[in-house]
């Protein structure tokens, strides 16, 4: 038992919404262990969740955690530090990395996190969601490992091209992006789409690793749909976020979060001093999304925007972000096909029109 996993009798009763008497009955019936620390009885919260909470609370209605749905983590939150992941259905990279960054953010606040999982979380497991959590936050996050032993070994390799990986050190993204693009090319994707993906991913991974500083940033890539023509990647971090980063430059100090996130996509806009001539990466990423007829979703410090350019449409939307903490999660959905040719000035004009809409 880890200290961070222990709860008192009173906390267990609150969690289960039952009396001490009922807890005592259940404890015996379901063989829940306890320990005494300084004469106080304590339980493992993981064991309580697994052996009692899961029986008293069936998952019920599932929550779709993806780029295309408007979901809140509250929908599967048990209490301030526990989440019922059994309720998650069909997670994609955007959902999984948003949740991962949220948990990192919560742990950074000093919380110990408990996850209630079951066999339905096999896709999250294949995504390496639990692997990255365990690797970096081992002593602050708890779930019942035994569940994995009972999980069917489903092969998700046809969907998951790049399981969740940490982008720890600036520049370390190169080998990850290289392996991915080589794999896509071998699979028969066009040179153009591989190049666009490599370019966009390289820019975002470098940004993320630079701005997340001490906090980890994560990347994930998947393919789906008929003929695997939809390619989606997500990069996220629990760092300072785009607005905070941009406002370090005197020119952008007065922008609110929405204005700051949108403005950051304009060419030559950066939190760094103007003389360094930075601020082209996000412009290029949006230009790539526009040229490829992609969908781009950006969520940073509690604001979210969706840009859809598929089928020649131009749908800009202010969205309620899934990721509401400090930091940034960006997802791009590509479709291999024909590509337009645009310039950075086109991005500037487009962002100016978006700024008028918010």
């Amino acid at each position, binding site marked *: 038992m880890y200290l961070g996993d222990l709860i008192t009798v009173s906390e267990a009763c609150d969690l289960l919404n039952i009396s001490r008497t009922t807890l005592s009955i259940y404890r015996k019936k379901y063989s829940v262990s306890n320990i005494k620390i300084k004469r106080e009885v304590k339980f493992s919260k993981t064991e309580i969740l697994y052996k009692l909470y899961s029986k008293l609370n069936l998952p019920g209605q599932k929550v779709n955690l993806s780029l295309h749905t408007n979901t809140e983590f509250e929908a599967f939150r048990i209490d301030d530090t526990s989440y019922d992941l059994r309720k998650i259905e069909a997670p994609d990279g955007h959902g999984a990395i948003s949740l991962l960054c949220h948990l990192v953010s919560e742990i950074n606040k000093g919380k110990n996190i408990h996850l209630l999982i079951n066999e339905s979380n096999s896709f999250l497991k294949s995504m390496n969601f639990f692997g990255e959590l365990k690797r970096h936050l081992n002593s602050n996050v708890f779930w019942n490992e035994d569940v994995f032993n009972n999980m069917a070994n489903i092969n998700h390799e046809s969907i998951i091209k790049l399981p969740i990986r940490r982008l720890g050190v600036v520049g370390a*993204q190169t080998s990850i992006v290289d392996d991915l*693009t080589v794999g896509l090319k071998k699979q028969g994707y066009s040179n153009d789409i591989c190049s666009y993906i490599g370019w966009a991913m390289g820019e975002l991974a470098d940004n993320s690793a630079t701005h997340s500083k001490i906090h980890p940033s994560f990347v994930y890539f998947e393919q789906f749909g008929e003929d695997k023509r939809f390619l989606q990647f997500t990069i996220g971090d629990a760092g300072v976020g785009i607005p905070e980063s941009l406002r370090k430059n005197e020119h952008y100090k007065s922008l609110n979060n929405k204005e700051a996130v949108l403005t950051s996509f304009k060419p030559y806009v950066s939190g760094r001093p103007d003389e360094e*001539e930075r601020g082209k990466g996000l412009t*290029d990423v949006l230009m790539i999304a526009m040229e490829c007829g992609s969908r781009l979703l950006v969520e940073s410090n509690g604001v979210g925007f969706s840009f859809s350019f598929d089928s020649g449409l131009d749908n800009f939307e202010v969205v309620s972000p899934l990721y509401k903490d400090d930091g940034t999660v960006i997802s791009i959905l590509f479709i291999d096909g024909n590509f337009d040719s645009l310039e950075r000035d086109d991005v500037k004009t487009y962002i100016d029109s978006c700024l008028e809409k918010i």
Partner: protein
Amino acid sequence: MSMVKLKEYGLNLSGRPLGIKTYSIIINDYEAPYELDFNGVFSIGSSFADEVVARLAEINNGKIRILNSSRVIDKCLKNVSKDKGFELVY
């Protein structure tokens, strides 16, 4: 004239730190003037290109020869040459 095969430094060349490192290797290992071979390279990012292509072009008196680049790579290079004021020769 030194022909630098950029594939040796990665297939997706992005990020300023990698650019700074690559530039330093190239100027140590090759003699100016330089030309850049993109054979096998998928992509280049603008900050990498700032640190490598623009700086090598500066040593080459404001121009640099580019070989085997794709449409997507050319797109990025064109923007960087416009920003930094050097000529791309194909």
